[in-house]
């Protein structure tokens, strides 16, 4: 494929790019989604929901063994024929673009509530979108570096709300396992939407520098994501309780209130600024994926052209999504279908690849 040697991701960049493909705005609302179904056992749902990224990863691993240098778009054309394959590819592209728009509008909503209520919607969305557009304009390496740096910058976000242990009670998460296996599985289904994004692994694995480390990197990133989701949900239940958490749109940010630093009156501004970075890296990953997939589909135009072209459409969709309620409705109306599509599409693809002649010769 037309991948130049220099434009490859190092193992750590690959890991963190996968992490940011999964962790987006979902992490701020996830506790409420699982509490709805699984009550105080929501955090168990998050662990069980981890089956979804693991499943997709296993598929990717099997495929990558036979086709280490072909990405999703080439494979789908190979397996389903040119027409059908391209239709599936277009659906996949629309998925990337929609995800980018969802993250962006979610970001705008949170940011305008907690950090900058005096700004208008477009005043947040347009400048912020420049960052991912610029990164996508450069190369995959910039994306990898960006994801890596931001990950290290924001790693303390995960451990910061540890202060809740001082104030809350273990009674909030008891009785463990009382809601029953059915409710926990329902909760796990909810988390699948948060874990979605792992599908990008099919695009990314040919870009990994050392193919041998694919297993290690992917499992590390999935592990990190499962940990973050479980941890955040656990803390929200532990600190706020299942009756109170749904009263907040973004319970994860409410956790910031547990931190009491004498000079800083409200810690939320710092908290939200760092979460903003996390969201921007998710946004950048999807933005890159959108440009990249477009350029794979339309061979004549380069990725750089698309980085400029899709800027306005994404901003437009994000602005049209509007307030959190409307956005939530749109997410619930689209993402479940995309997740179903991805599972079926990728499973069938992996199944068909199994019978195709792999590019073993390329491997050697």
């Amino acid at each position: 494929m037309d991948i130049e040697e220099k434009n490859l991701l190092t193992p750590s960049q690959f890991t963190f790019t996968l992490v940011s493909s999964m962790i987006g705005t979902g992490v701020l609302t996830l506790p409420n989604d699982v509490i709805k179904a699984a009550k105080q056992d929501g955090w168990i749902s998050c662990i069980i929901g981890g089956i979804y990224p693991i499943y997709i990863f296993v598929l990717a691993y099997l495929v990558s063994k036979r086709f280490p240098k072909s990405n999703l778009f080439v494979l789908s054309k190979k397996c389903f024929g040119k027409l059908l394959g391209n239709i599936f590819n277009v659906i996949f592209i629309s998925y990337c673009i929609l995800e980018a728009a969802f993250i962006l509008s979610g970001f705008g909503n949170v940011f305008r509530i907690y950090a900058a209520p005096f700004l208008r919607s477009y005043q947040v969305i347009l400048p912020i979108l420049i960052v991912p557009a610029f990164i996508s304009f450069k190369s995959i390496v910039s994306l990898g570096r960006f994801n890596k740096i931001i990950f290290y910058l924001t790693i303390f976000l995960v451990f910061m709300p540890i202060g809740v242990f001082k104030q809350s009670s273990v009674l909030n998460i008891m009785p463990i396992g009382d809601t029953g296996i059915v409710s926990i599985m329902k909760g796990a289904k909810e988390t699948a939407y948060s874990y979605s994004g792992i599908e990008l692994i099919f695009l990314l694995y040919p870009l990994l520098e050392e193919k041998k480390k694919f297993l290690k990197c992917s499992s590390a990133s999935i592990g990190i994501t499962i940990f973050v989701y479980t941890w955040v949900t656990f803390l929200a239940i532990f600190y706020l309780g299942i009756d109170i958490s749904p009263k907040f749109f973004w319970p994860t940010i409410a956790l910031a209130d547990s931190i009491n630093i004498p000079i800083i009156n409200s810690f939320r501004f710092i908290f939200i600024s760092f979460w903003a970075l996390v969201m921007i890296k998710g946004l950048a990953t999807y933005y890159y994926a959108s440009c990249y997939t477009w350029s794979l589909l339309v061979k004549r135009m380069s990725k750089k052209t698309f980085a400029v072209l899709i800027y306005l459409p994404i901003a437009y969709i994000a602005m049209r999504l509007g307030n959190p309620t409307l956005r939530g409705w749109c997410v619930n109306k689209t993402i479940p279908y995309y997740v179903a599509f991805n599972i079926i599409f990728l499973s069938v693809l992996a199944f068909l690849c199994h019978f195709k002649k792999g590019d073993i010769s390329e491997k050697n």
Partner: protein
Amino acid sequence: MMVVVLILTFSFIGAKGQMVEELEIPIGVGFDITKASSITYNKVPIIVYSFEEGGRVASNVLMGTGLSIGETRETRQLESSRKFLLGLTRIIVYSEESARDGLRNNLDVLVNNPEINDRALCVICKGKAEDMLKYKVKGVPSSADYIYGLVKNSDQFNFMSMQYTIMDMVVRVDAEGRNVILPYVEITENGIKITGTAIFNGARMVGKADIRESRVINLLKEDKVKGILTIQKNSKEYIDCYVQSKRKVKCERKDGKYKFIINLNLKGKIVNNCLYNNLNSDVKTLKTFEEDMKKTAEKMCEEYINKIKCEYNTDVLDLGRVAVARYGRGTGTDWNSVICNSIIEVKVSFKVDTEGRGDY
């Protein structure tokens, strides 16, 4: 690059930055209601600091009146010459009347607005919140600061636990098996004073406990609280002990009836001793003292436990919370009524931790 610069400049035109002299900083918020026939008026007095030239801080009370809380903001703006800067509020004072009417609408406003300082302390006051905020206290710029200090440092004695912030209220009011209690302040001859505890059922205040009863409620309800316990024979012979508590609650269910056992693990620092001889040298005396103290504490709790259990018709001691943690959530049990029909046992264990410098 041009586009970037353009968008950035465009975005930040009209951003609102203001000099501190042009701002009003709300430091205390009150909530009053007035009932006129069937209509309830909300009155929200807010005490604000404004910085005048020469670094002087002036405080005055702005009043907002309206049928809804939003409307009070509008009427308040009519008498305010500056811009509000929220986020530094220290205290929220609810009048007893408004608390008895229910605080759900207020809580809704507080949760909704992200600029509110969630660490602001809440108190219930006798009479009008407006009077409380207008009351002048010597040595502090406003009564709001004084009440803030009063409540903030209340956890040193009386077994109070300082869990009275907005956030504490939010996580208690609607949670299953939990209820909030707030300090009750009054204007007395000697100034503003905490005179008891306001007891809530959900978002509605249902009763007031005096300070003696509050001590027992706090001791039984909260974990890790501090206070003085005394064994007194007469005005000369007594022993004081500064104890710190650890609370553990067990819950059992038999034939649909609940039994709660509150285990209090008290550790004490002897403050003075004019009752026991040889307390410092004789282990036996020390053991007798520990036994006596245990009995005193149990007696103190038993004296009030029936009143606490049934009088307010609410689960004052957060016992429902322990029961749901064991027997499952969302069963629709009304813990506020169940508690009155259950058995509550208090078991105290007492140990002397330190004995001070000496015994005179």
